[in-house]
């Protein structure tokens, strides 16, 4: 690991001031925020990331960043809440199964205790070529160097949202739930707070896969706002190679509002198959206002994966992704909701 200075400011404004330095992208900025550190310290050991200063945000006095609050239909979750804390909150378990199931199916309890939700959504890809610096080609790590994954071992890689420059998977579980629920993100920057749609946080790789988010260096996520709650008829289904502590091969976060068999509203977020947290709007469009059956669910899944671009080893993700969507929809329909 490369040497770095360690700062532990007392509040968010001071943290932002320390981190507001010029950089081409927030992930390559020389000053990085450290929450739980579960992605960052790992990538620093691997020499994939090499910040010269870490700003530890776990001791910030801003209590709102540690709170889970309800206000009307809105749920506000502070960015310093740990994965474990949200997944253990019994009122969230009852009212937002989509949020808690996606958390407990991610990581191990040790990591959930450490990792904060702000960092969780910013976790970086597990693409082996990105993580192993002995591969010269990685457009995410070294812009313009090429991509070893395109024709390499790419069983774990994305089939949706890919480009000719990068097919790295967004591997997180919680973000698909947030994008399905139209969450918003509150951010503090040098010029004050702003808010953006969660759907606008992550950027498709396109020709600049090293620019992963729309955050400006120095901007700090302070909270997530989930509107339109509660979402009791919702769930997260994750398919993986082993039953626990493994990244998704495909996953679906679903929230349904039914009127008998008719779909009044449906929201679908996908994980394990795309380069960014993926909102399955095409699938939603097929279902809205229709009867939910295995056949309509299959038609919806087919529509979403029409644009899939599989490579040599990940063709299975198209069929698996569709089956996961169908299963998640039918299981959400079958939920007994009070």
């Amino acid at each position: 690991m490369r040497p770095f200075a360690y700062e532990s400011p007392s509040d968010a404004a001071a943290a932002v001031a320390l981190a507001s330095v010029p950089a081409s992208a927030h992930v390559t900025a020389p000053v990085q925020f450290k929450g739980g550190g579960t992605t960052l310290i790992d990538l620093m050991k691997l020499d994939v990331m090499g910040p010269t200063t870490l700003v530890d945000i776990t001791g910030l006095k801003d209590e709102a960043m540690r709170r889970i609050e309800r206000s009307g239909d809105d749920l506000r979750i502070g960015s310093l809440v740990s994965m474990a804390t949200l997944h253990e909150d019994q009122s969230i378990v009852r009212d937002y199964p989509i949020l808690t199931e996606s958390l407990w199916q991610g990581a191990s309890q040790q990591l959930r205790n450490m990792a904060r939700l702000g960092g969780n959504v910013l976790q970086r890809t597990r693409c082996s070529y990105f993580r192993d610096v002995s591969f010269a080609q990685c457009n995410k790590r070294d812009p313009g160097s090429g991509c070893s994954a395109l024709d390499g071992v790419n069983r774990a890689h994305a089939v949706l949202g890919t480009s000719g420059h990068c097919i790295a998977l967004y591997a997180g579980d919680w973000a698909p739930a947030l994008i399905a629920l139209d969450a918003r993100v509150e951010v503090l920057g040098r010029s004050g707070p702003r808010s953006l749609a969660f759907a606008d946080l992550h950027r498709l790789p396109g020709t600049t896969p090293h620019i992963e988010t729309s955050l400006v260096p120095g901007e700090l996520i302070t909270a997530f706002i989930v509107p339109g709650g509660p979402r009791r008829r919702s769930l997260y289904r994750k398919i993986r190679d082993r039953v626990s502590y493994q990244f998704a091969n495909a996953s679906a976060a679903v929230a349904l509002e039914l009127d008998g068999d008719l779909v009044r509203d449906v929201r679908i977020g996908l994980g394990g198959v795309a380069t960014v947290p993926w909102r399955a709007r095409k699938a939603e469009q097929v279902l809205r206002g229709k009867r939910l059956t295995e056949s309509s669910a299959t038609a919806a899944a087919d529509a979403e994966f029409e644009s899939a671009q599989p490579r040599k080893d990940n063709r299975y993700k198209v069929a698996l992704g569709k089956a996961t969507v169908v299963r998640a929809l039918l299981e959400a329909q079958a939920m007994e909701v009070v």
Partner: protein
Amino acid sequence: MTVAVQEGSKSPGAGKRPLDHRAEPQWRDASLAVNGVFHTVHVDTRMTLLDALREKLKLTGSKKGCDQGQCGACTVHVDGERHLSCLTLAVAVQGRNITTIEGLAQGDNLHPMQRAFIDHDAFQCGYCTSGQIMSAVACIGEGHAGTDGDIREYMSGNLCRCAAYPNIVAAVKQAKAEMEKS
């Protein structure tokens, strides 16, 4: 742990960035509360809690397995929660109560979980064991050891190369009964 065989143009050091000679190691005095005792250690900011425990405090019970947050061998308690000490910076846990495997027994009296691991032969090589035990104690404290399925799920962050898993589950159940009695 599976290691994927990777194709692609791999050559030693090809993608490595040059060392930045402007960056000098940064040293700090860190105050660590470990097993109820305060220590001040002089550490490089890069030093993990795991390395500080093992190299500075000579508490070698916490083990370095993968050093990447994947295996759980380095599990310790920070303010009662199980954390991975290999992904924790020593400078970042000053003032927190850290408990390691060395802090579980009361004198010569083993913790019920340590006793249960012996009773059930819940290890073979023993390398993952201190992490398993620290994780298991926390697992019961969290209320995540209600069923065999829960134990397997909530212990999944602790890998055992010898696959002593069935015996680990049995040990956790025995210790849970004893811990709830006392």
